[in-house]
């Protein structure tokens, strides 16, 4: 069961802020982040990696992406 962050429609830096909020909340496990631009996809992936999370999967979904990040 993963937590979902819906950052679609938000512009930089909000998707990253929302992702980091969720990361701080759950500490570990799996989070799915929905974004709708390539910039957000890159920024969210970069921020998650810098926090020690792994980008497990990036799937195209509708007009955007579903990014799955995990931490053991």
């Amino acid at each position, binding site marked *: 069961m993963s937590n979902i962050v819906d950052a*679609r*429609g*938000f*512009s*930089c*830096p*909000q998707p*990253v*802020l929302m992702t*980091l*909020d969720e990361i701080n909340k759950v500490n570990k496990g799996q989070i799915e982040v929905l974004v*709708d*631009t*390539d*910039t957000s996809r*890159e*920024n969210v992936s*970069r*921020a998650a990696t*810098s926090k020690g999370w792994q980008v497990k999967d990036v799937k195209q979904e509708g*007009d955007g992406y579903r990014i799955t990040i995990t931490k053991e």
Partner: protein
Amino acid sequence: MGILKNFFATRWGIISVGSFIGVFAPLLQKLGNPGNMGICVACFERDIAGALGLHRAAVVQYMRPEIIGFVLGSLIAAYIFKEFRPRVGSAPIVRFVLGAFAMIGALVFLGCPWRALLRLAGGDGNGILGLAGLICGIWIGTLFLKGGYSLGRTEKTHTSVGWLLPLIMLGFLVLMLMSPQVKGQTKSGVLFYSLKGPGSMHAPLIISLVIGLAIGFLAQRSRFCTMGAFRDLILFRQAHLFMGICALVIVAFITNLIVGQFHPGFLKQPVAHTMAIWNFGGMVVAGLAFALAGGCPGRQLFLAGEGDGDAAVFVLGMIVGAAFSHNFGLASSPKGVGPHGIAAVIIGLLVCIFIGFTMRKRAA
């Protein structure tokens, strides 16, 4: 294509784009653009406002092809890499107002963040105060962001909506070709042309346009942003975009040294004044407005090129803000701040703070 796509998102990608701008901005100056103003998004949009006659400051009127190139270059990159996403609806009126005051603040300092960096790279010590103001404004913006400030979500829209600003820019280019500059004339067709001052100084049209297109293309790929550089550093301790502007300053400094454009000092710098407080204060307003709007003036052009209609509204706000700046005596000149520049900085700060405090979204 995939490799290229990934490259620009890497550290070396952003460094190479910053370096590219660092080489070509000083070269544009060498080829005719004003001093320490190889590229200045605020100044050039102000010159466009002048060329259109939205203000009648005779020394700053020229349809700058670099700006046209930035938007169209980004559009081309967005299409090639399938990133053109028409979208609108995230508080456009707020973005318009932020754009106008960002311009008003920038013209008190006499430069956007790009020019603040280029002024520093050209030896203008006043650029340090502008940058300090910029960082201070962005820092205030990050406090609002941490407090839940949000302009709300965009909505997907028709392709034609995303095309509007690129089409306006294309229209400007057509106007320029139909009304070319005539030596010694202040007006050609519908466009105004400066005979003296910064507006009269420019590189050849085709060179400005091609370099503008190249920078627009590369900046769309790399998400180059001078505001984001400081914001991400303050907010996330992340130096990715910051590497880009460091590369810009260092390479521009070296390029200036090579072509003989490095003149260190505070006095008699080109298109600059020495009123430290207002160099700082103007950029506090601009930095805060850019932070609240999510991008530096260059980034707003690149976003507009990839279909972001809200960024396009910010750009139009900047152009209108430039007209107000010169019509109301808000803009500075090398002699110092304009007659109402100080009042404008205070009002701009109040407006930005009002927007920052009132547009907060609390998590449910």
